[in-house]
């Protein structure tokens, strides 16, 4: 792959991987704290799956950059500082209440499903193959969070109120998902990735009817709080402090 295209693809893959990693960490925070045992187990599983998907993207990134796929992912996860992460702010926000967690996971899963449907047709075979692998597992995520959106949206007055508040809190951050990635233009031109903006219609088609059926209103005309994946909130720094502190304290032990 040509150098310019390679570095553009590297940037794209880093964003995909960081989104999955940070969301996995937030999901793992429910372990031992979820409202019911079944959900404790479900969110531990979701965290594990998203972590696995992050690893797939980090390894592919290592291949594209000519780095060691066994060591590079650890290096990226445990030694970068917050400004070097390329995740959307949506995934770094604190886990919030149960409603916030579910709404965030649902809109992220729905977006991911739409993006994966396009990535499996990528002109770069390793990317298409990785997307196909991830797609099979995501089926279970979307089914799970969709069911919860309905259950809580249609549950009680209080559950509906909290879900509506969650939708309003999540949606501005979620809109960052469809913002074009840095340097995605050459990748789009080569048919390697879809234009991010193109995913909006399919994503809304996936999300809007579910919210409507759950008696939840999607806010109109909102803009993402962040313009760039280089911008982060204080929350990411806190998250990384926890995620990285053992690895930073014992760098020679770095085998996870």
């Amino acid at each position, binding site marked *: 792959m040509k150098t310019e295209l390679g570095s553009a693809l590297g940037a794209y893959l880093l964003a995909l991987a960081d989104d999955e990693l940070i969301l996995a960490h937030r999901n793992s925070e429910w372990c031992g704290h979820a409202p019911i045992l*079944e959900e404790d187990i479900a969110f531990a599983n979701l965290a594990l799956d998203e972590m696995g998907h992050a690893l797939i993207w980090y390894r592919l990134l290592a291949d594209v950059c000519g780095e060691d796929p066994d060591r590079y992912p650890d290096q990226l996860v445990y030694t970068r500082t917050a400004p070097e992460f390329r995740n959307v702010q949506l995934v770094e926000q604190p886990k919030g209440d149960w409603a916030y967690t579910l709404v965030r996971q649902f809109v992220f899963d729905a977006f991911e499903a739409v993006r994966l449907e396009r990535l499996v047709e990528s002109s770069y075979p390793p990317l298409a193959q990785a997307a*196909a692998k991830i797609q099979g*597992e995501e089926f279970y995520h979307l089914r799970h969070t969709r069911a919860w959106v309905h259950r809580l949206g249609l549950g009680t007055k209080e559950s509906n109120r909290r879900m509506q508040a969650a939708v309003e809190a999540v949606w501005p951050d979620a809109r960052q998902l469809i913002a074009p990635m840095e340097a995605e233009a050459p990748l789009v031109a080569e048919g390697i990735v879809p234009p991010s903006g193109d995913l909006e219609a399919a994503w809304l088609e996936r999300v809007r009817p579910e919210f409507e059926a759950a008696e939840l209103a999607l806010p109109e005309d909102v803009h993402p709080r962040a313009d760039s994946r280089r911008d982060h909130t204080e929350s990411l720094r806190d998250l990384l402090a926890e995620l990285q502190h053992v690895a930073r304290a014992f760098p020679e032990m770095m085998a996870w």
Partner: protein
Amino acid sequence: MVGESSSGAPGSVEQRVWQALETVMDPEIPVISVVDLGLIRKVVVEDDRVAVTMTPTFAGCPALHVMEREIKARLSGLGFATVTVETTLSPAWSTDWLSDSAREKLHAYGIAPPPQHGGAVNLILMEAVPCPQCGSDQTTERNAFGPTACKAIYTCDNCLEPFERFKPV
């Protein structure tokens, strides 16, 4: 059955490798092997070197590293100087690759085996899962997520026993 496409000619070194791989069990379901699961995609023997290509089940499954280590140990035990285990993502692993004997072993172990789906995983596959205890198909899915990435939790409405089900992917 892509997962069983090759097991080496009788009496060959390849066959000995495949036989050794059949003794590497899934640490989370110790009755089925990496071969039963359809994880072994290719075995190439060259002089005193052996290269195994495997594919992950669920991408985040923590058992994969254990199985990889075990494969290396088992094949080194056969006298190979170099054992390499490579991972491939494509074609993506499917529960359709589980061998018939793997399905029987799962059932006997109390885990409902995944149905053959030919690539179409849909909601219908989540219903009427026969209970591995009493055989009734009056069962209810309790949680799509279970104690391991590959299993869901059901209860039987007939014998009232809970059971695990290997998820179709």
